[in-house]
């Protein structure tokens, strides 16, 4: 399976994603510069974390107009998997591929810590290797991860099972204390209507090896690889 890891000016988790895909999962992976016009030949696109364009104006606001985003839109339209992690999630919301917006954390601090997320939906291409209700330990590292959407959109996301991960206690209880950033309904990851575009604030690529302290994100990549669509 061949992964495209998009590199924007200011991306900084591109190497983490590359390492996970290439060395942990032994898949093909390329860095794809944001000026690329085509994503032909790839099976999965990852928009990595970082600070694209210095977070100027709003996180992801300028990156979404990078030339490659046209190709990402096309890729997504074909039903192929697109995973946006952290800044990648922010870019996907700005691009309109996912609803809502990631606002400044409620506590105003940049939070770098390992959190627990509960798997709310394991019927997606990104989470099928998890058991429903399983709790995964995955790190977060962001200042703008406070997911917000209007009440109608939240109702729709909930109704359609599009909330994929929710911040929870290690026991799997979704509580206000377990919510690190103020996200509505403890939302940590969502998918689009078709289920092939996922945005997640937690970094699964940083939780794929025991050496990193947790393998809570391993199953995200396992799922993607297992659900590989025929080219």
């Amino acid at each position: 399976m061949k992964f495209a890891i998009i590199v924007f000016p200011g991306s900084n988790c591109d190497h983490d994603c590359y390492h996970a895909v290439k060395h942990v999962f032994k898949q093909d992976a390329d860095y794809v510069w944001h000026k690329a016009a085509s994503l032909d030949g790839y099976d999965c696109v990852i928009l990595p974390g970082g600070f694209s364009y210095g977070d100027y104006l709003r996180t992801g606001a300028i990156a979404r107009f990078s030339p490659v985003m046209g190709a990402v839109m096309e890729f997504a339209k074909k039903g192929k998997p697109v995973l946006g992690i952290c800044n990648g999630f922010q870019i996907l919301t700005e691009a309109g591929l996912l609803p809502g917006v990631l606002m400044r954390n409620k506590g105003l601090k940049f939070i770098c810590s390992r959190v627990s997320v509960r798997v709310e939906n394991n019927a997606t291409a990104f989470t099928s290797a998890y058991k429903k209700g399983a709790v995964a330990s995955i790190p977060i590292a962001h200042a703008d991860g406070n997911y917000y959407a209007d009440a109608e959109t939240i109702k729709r996301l909930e109704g359609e099972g599009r909330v994929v991960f929710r911040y929870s206690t290690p026991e799997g209880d979704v509580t206000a204390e377990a919510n690190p950033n103020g996200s509505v309904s403890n939302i940590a990851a969502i998918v689009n209507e078709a289920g092939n575009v996922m945005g997640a604030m937690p970094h699964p690529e940083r939780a794929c090896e025991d050496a990193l302290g947790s393998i809570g994100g391993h199953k995200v990549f396992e799922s993607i690889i297992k659900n590989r669509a025929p080219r």
Partner: protein
Amino acid sequence: MKAKIYVTLKKCVLDPQGKAVAGALNAMNYKEVEDVRVGKFIEVEIKGSSNKEQEARLKEMCDNLLANTVIENYRIEME
């Protein structure tokens, strides 16, 4: 011409930055401060003079890039 654009968070959206600033002002003994909302001010220099067509184009710029209308409102002043 110059366009002045004010981008503010919608009323229904919590503004943690504004809350922190209000808290600081209160702590500085400005007890009359009840609430603060922090927004953005953007100046755009534009070729030509202000007209209806340019106003429409500025609105487009706001909708497409300068503001995120999920959480923000904007106001345009043309000089």
